[in-house]
């Protein structure tokens, strides 16, 4: 499930393209596509028992191909890599609202989600509806990805979903520390990317990725040193 966040981010591309072509707010198109794909992946997994990775991999390559075909060339780079200079107040307000929803939803399902990952059987025997938790997880990922797309684009937003958590995992011994550090590293990577972008006059997305990677490498070193 770890790579679901990265692969799912590419699924937003056709949604962005449709938003641009039909002249409505592209963010809505991106989220609608992400949400629809999340539901489709969840349903396909239920009936085929194929792994999430297989289904998401299929969906993302299809979405990428469709997105590249239909998005106007002039907007392609922005869709793929984001453009912080195009972020307006509406985007910021929506990001705050979506973030709040994501945080609340995560808090509600966190224990059941972790239990389902540890052991589906243990979760099911404890009356956890694993299928419903998987669907909520996919919706959460869709929410989080759609928040970051405007700034870092569909190619790089997956990094922000996966890498801060991976960095936190290197130096965490319990879930409280893990969730606090994951969030902190995500904020630190994105903030560093934005600040560096304004001082170096370079795109924020790749700089956020480089910042996040630096954090990840530091935690790898800390883990290695602690052995």
């Amino acid at each position, binding site marked *: 499930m770890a790579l679901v966040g990265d692969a799912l981010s590419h699924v937003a591309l056709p949604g962005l393209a449709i938003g641009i072509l039909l002249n409505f707010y592209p963010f809505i198109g991106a989220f609608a596509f992400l949400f629809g794909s999340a539901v489709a992946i969840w349903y396909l997994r239920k009936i085929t028992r194929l792994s999430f990775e297989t289904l998401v991999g299929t969906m993302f390559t299809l979405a990428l191909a469709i997105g590249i075909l239909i998005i106007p060339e002039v907007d392609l780079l922005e869709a793929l890599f984001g453009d912080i200079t195009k972020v307006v107040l509406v985007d910021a307000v929506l990001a705050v609202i979506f973030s709040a929803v994501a945080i609340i939803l995560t808090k509600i399902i966190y224990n059941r989600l972790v239990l389902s990952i*540890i052991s589906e*059987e243990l979760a099911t025997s*404890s009356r956890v509806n694993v299928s419903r938790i998987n669907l909520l997880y996919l919706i959460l990922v869709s929410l989080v990805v759609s928040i970051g797309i405007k700034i870092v684009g569909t190619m790089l937003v997956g990094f922000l979903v996966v890498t801060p958590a991976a960095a936190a*995992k290197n130096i965490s*011994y319990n879930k409280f520390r893990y969730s606090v550090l994951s969030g902190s590293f995500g904020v630190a990577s994105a903030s560093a990317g934005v600040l560096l972008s304004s001082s170096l006059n370079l795109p924020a997305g790749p700089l956020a990725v480089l910042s996040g990677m630096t954090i990840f490498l530091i935690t790898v070193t800390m883990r290695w040193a602690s052995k």
Partner: protein
Amino acid sequence: MVEKDYILQVSKLGVKLQDQVILEDINFKLKKGKTLAIVGPNGAGKTVLFRTLLNLVPHTGEIEWTDQVKIGYVPQTMYVSDIPISVKEFLTFKSSANVKEALESVGLEAKDFMNKPLGVLSGGQLQRVLIAWAIIDNPNVLLFDEPTMGVDLGSVEAIYKMLDDLRKRREITILLISHDVHIIRDYSDYMLALNRCVTFFGNSKKIGDLKVQRMIFGEPVCLAYNVE
């Protein structure tokens, strides 16, 4: 209605998954406070039987538990190696009360293990934590699917001794799946042998009998047992 002194009664139980018969005509009953070992070759339907008893799998026939039954379940496998979660956090998924007591019931010092990540525990320690998980909310029935798989030989005996002590102290009924013949003989009261159907049900001391062993692990013979 389950008879007095019995905790579980299974009648004509059948399970079919994807058009394949996994279990058919399973009949047995189990007295309270006893240990039932479920044995059979790989693919005999042992884990499916457990999942059916937990009502996780559609089935035909009847499964009757006594009133107010509370089941604790320990699955065969659990993936924990890189998940940052402590023993205390794992146990509080189920119940925040009795964490210390549950750990000490399974022979783990609470102060040493509460804050340890699950991923650093040995096979035997992890199994004990899973047992603590199963008992933390005071069940009266425990289902163990191969409780010592992946555990070193030295710890296997200790875990079964601990389970036996738990059973006596808390008056728990235990159902366990095991391939270990001497564990079946020494730590269970009854044995149910499966190979799609019931091939043997009776006193577990009979596992020492070569004829019974051939019956269980050799060519399957479906026998009809009347539940009286």
